[in-house]
């Protein structure tokens, strides 16, 4: 399954990354090299194999629905690139 330039652009946008126009061709080739290599997995028939999602198959633990941490607004906003009125600030979204 070789990918084309358009797919590279689409994947970059889905990833919220920019690829300069002159680098699209090289990126495509690099991706196709990696994807070709991954194709070797198709040598094995896995139709009847259950996918392995996690090695420890324990079910998720239940716990009381209580607040385990909180009241740390100031701590959390300390790392914000921009904060106003106790909120994270972003460029205007609604015109």
């Amino acid at each position: 399954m070789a990918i084309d330039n358009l797919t590279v652009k689409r994947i970059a946008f889905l990833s919220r990354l920019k690829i300069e126009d002159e680098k699209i061709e090289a990126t495509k080739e690099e991706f196709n090299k990696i994807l070709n290599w991954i194709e070797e997995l198709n040598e094995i028939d896995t139709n009847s194999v259950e996918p392995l999602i996690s090695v420890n198959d324990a079910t998720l633990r239940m716990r009381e629905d209580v607040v385990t941490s909180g009241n740390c607004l100031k701590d959390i906003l300390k790392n914000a690139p921009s904060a106003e009125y106790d909120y994270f600030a972003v460029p205007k979204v609604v015109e």
Partner: protein
Amino acid sequence: MTEITTFSVAETLKALKNKEFSAVELTKAYLHNMENGRQYNAYITECADVALKQAEEADKRYINGTNRALEGIPLGIKDLFCTKDIRTTAASHILDNFVPPYESTVTQHLLDDGAVFLGKLNLDEFAMGGSNETSYFGPVINPWSKDKPLVPGGSSGGSAAAVAAHLCAAATGTDTGGSIREPAAFCGITGIKPTYGRCSRYGIVAFASSLDQAGPIAQDVRDCAILLKSMAGFDEKDSTSCNITVPDYESFLNREVKGLTIGLPKEYRPEGLNPEVAAYWDKAAEYLKARGANIKEISLPHTKYALATYYVLAPAEASSNLARYDGIRYGFRADGQHLDDLYINTRTQGFGAEVRRRIMIGTYVLSAGYYDAYFLKAQKMRRLIHNDFMNAFKECDVILTPTSPITAFPIGDESMLQNPINMYLNDVFTVSVNLAGLPALSLPIGLSATGLPYGMQLIGKPFDEGTLFNVAAKIETDAKFERK
């Protein structure tokens, strides 16, 4: 370098208890080494003030008799562990101003046991790499380098280099596809990736959550046993943490290997395997045989597919985990007229080339129309690889393999840079273990003709780290490897 910084953790603890030197003296000696060892670029952030304060507290405790398991031991922490009020970067521009308001569980355990934190250690950006060359803060230099600078391995390259050069008594690492074991092998020291679920992942910057595990990197097997005892343990804050008692790992070191069956997977000896590697592998097996262990050839039939499986699953999980870096709540933010521009500019400028590559590969294999062909396929392959090990462990107690097919290579190696797959191939002996969630230890076995260390890998049954320490201690005794 003063003599006290060449001591192992076990020796240092004994000396501190006997008041041969104080924790403050010891910490100052390491800080001195760090100052003189900056050419290795092992630390991203040094924290002398914090360390000296912790050392003073340790000295008080030695005097009043309330000293804890690691009281006064100066450690380096891989800069992937969140440390409260100490900058944590993941070696990425996108986090280079991030100061966590909380502490990771593993580092909290170490602090609770009295450890001293010297600073935060360099790594591949977001732990993605096998050479420490993808760090935003520049490559780490392997202390074994001779005429030209060599890589320390990765991603825990700063940890391995710092331990080898005595810039800390021991260090923490993380391992997603070999990131503890490969650098330990390249730098002639010892490291263990425990069973998935043994150490809490809470507060460790996530790369591929179903594969990531924390573990120690230290001078020898005993030090790894001491450190892991402290780092491991159940944690409610990590839903994949396992509630299984952590044994006293040191107690396994004196056990015999007589009667144990050691498996040697035939798939790990492909045609063209470096003859030096093959010879050391045989030698390690002979040591164990001479002590009464049974050596048995085993088969892990899907070994060939482990790398490709890993390079679907790890980028897929990474693309999802790294979606959080958007310049809104923490970390670097680039300007953008609209919100999407802000996201795109932040991420494009904030991430390095290898991280961007993996995010895009991961996004692709998870995208509509390709999910089944790549991601689901890889999850099925993961099952087969896992089953291989479970079947093998019906016939043996421990598996012995080389850690890496090569020794440390020069920084800026052309073939690795030109084709990312060449770099990925270095993980050939280590990634299967992460896919299967098993514990594995790497220890030095000997030097190449060019004077560079090779590592041996021991792979254990789930939660059987103890047997790894048992067997590794015997190989260590017999190999008589001379550390830096």
